[in-house]
């Protein structure tokens, strides 16, 4: 079966400093993969290379067998890639529902339509409400995003990603900065995502993240130092080395 994401010898340097130093990875369809590593290990850079926010210096990125390394981020999104960001960058002037509608439109040809009012599209509004119900935000759908709480914004961001029916979902520290309760609800949300969505998540090695992951990749100085099932990685001496300082 074709891997959902297949990375081969990916490299990216900034001014001579290698941020990603020959990373290779295979993620199977439907898998739940966790990427961990100390700060500065290059986790977000790796995500940026996968999503297209950054162009790799060399190496290949294949999405469901298709080479996408030369494609722009929007082209990769059109092929079923969705991601969230470490810092929330949504649309504060719009309501939460409008944010989701914007996400839904992104993959449809009607996003180019320049005359008929968007407000008329009841179908989009209804679908947005459905997605928001899945993440528990139906009650605040019409609240401006700027007025939402941090946890609500995180859930809205995930809703926007899910609204696009992605095949591969990249989550960059989705649990960061959340309260205990919010963390639990986001966790439940993530666990409820069906298997036709492959999930790759960057997180700190908290119990919640570890419980969610099936396979874990440990990054350090831009390279993969350990990879395997949760049990294997947790027991591996190099993992402990990296976290306790070599």
């Amino acid at each position, binding site marked *: 079966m074709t891997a959902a994401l297949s990375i081969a010898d990916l490299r990216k340097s900034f001014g001579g400093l290698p941020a990603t130093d020959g990373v290779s990875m295979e993620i199977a369809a439907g898998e739940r993969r966790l990427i961990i590593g100390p700060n500065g290990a290059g986790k977000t850079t790796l995500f940026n290379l996968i999503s297209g926010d950054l162009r790799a210096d060399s190496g290949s990125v294949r999405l469901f067998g298709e080479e996408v390394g030369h494609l722009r981020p*929007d082209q990769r999104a059109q092929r079923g890639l*969705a991601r969230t960001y470490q810092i929330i*960058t949504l*649309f504060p002037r719009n309501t939460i529902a409008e944010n989701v*509608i914007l996400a839904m*439109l*992104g993959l449809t040809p009607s996003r180019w339509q*320049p005359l008929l009012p*968007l407000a008329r*599209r009841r179908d989009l509004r209804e679908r947005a409400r459905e997605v928001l119900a899945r993440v528990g935000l139906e009650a605040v759908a019409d609240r401006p995003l700027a007025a939402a709480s941090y946890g609500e914004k995180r859930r809205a961001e995930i809703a926007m990603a899910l609204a696009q029916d992605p095949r591969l979902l990249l989550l960059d520290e989705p649990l960061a900065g959340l309260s205990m309760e919010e963390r639990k609800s986001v966790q439940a949300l993530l666990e409820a995502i069906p298997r036709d969505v492959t999930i790759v998540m960057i997180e700190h090695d908290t119990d919640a993240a570890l419980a969610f992951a099936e396979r874990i990749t440990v990054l350090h100085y831009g390279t993969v130092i350990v990879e395997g099932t949760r049990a294997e990685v947790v027991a591996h001496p190099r993992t402990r080395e990296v976290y306790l300082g070599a």
Partner: protein
Amino acid sequence: MISPRVLARLAAEAIALAAVPLVAGNDYYVNLGSQVLIAAIFAMSLNILVGYGGMTSLGHAAYLGVSAYATAWLAQRMGMGPLAAGACALAITTLLAAFYGVLALRASGLGFLMITLALGQILWGLAYRWVAVTGGDNGLSGLARPAPFGWDLGSATAFYYFSLAVFGIAFAAIGLFVGSPFGASLKGARDQPRRMRALGYNVWLIRWISFVVSGFWGGVAGLLYVYYNNFISPHALSLTQSAEALLMVIAGGPATLLGPLVGAALVIVMKNVVSAYVERWTLLLGAVFVAIVIFLPDGLVPGAQRLWARWASRRGKGGR
């Protein structure tokens, strides 16, 4: 769709604008009204870029100027009728915007500002120096006003209603544009371009199309400009003209539909009416502009809306 309340407000405003010649009394004020409408269309076209697109341009006069010059030249040198010349000029202007857009969109923010300024200056320089074609400092004159469907636009009142009709069409078209899915994607690209790309939007293409649409409507303003004045000179392409348009947009309220009209009225009225009482009206205009930038950065229209909302809620009517 548009709520009945908004529709009623728009209707009231349309009626008010239509009543101007009847109320005005003499041709001077009617002509002033035409000037305001022409400037408003120009400002609305710039607002697509500045307010809704988040791209501040200091070279927008290029589209008004090229459209006006092309119309005058085609009418005079090629003997085309004013309307036919105008249609061709509009096509030329739109092509120019398409070309300039590719160049300008290589940068964003201040880089974009500077490229648009430079591109505008190039055209101004050409208008000034290429005397054989543009008449240089003397410009081109003697263009007749068109007679669409036999309607004689010679009188001030007739031309005012013509301008009002064009303004209405522009207002409706731009209003629909801004409220459409494409408009939503333009605003999204303004607010979070990286997020928009991640959501599947081709941000460059959205911006380029908007640039071309903006240039088109700027060209429409240019047509009215040259029909109104029967004359075009390099001043219409100057940096000062582009700066004034930017002033109108910022003062009135970028990212609002009525802001450009308010801004245009402010500038034109100050230029023509206030100048009779206050000799240093430009100084005043500059001061007003700086004050708006500091204290009312969203512009006059949203500022007024906020004051209205506060006033209305205080009177127990319930805010908006």
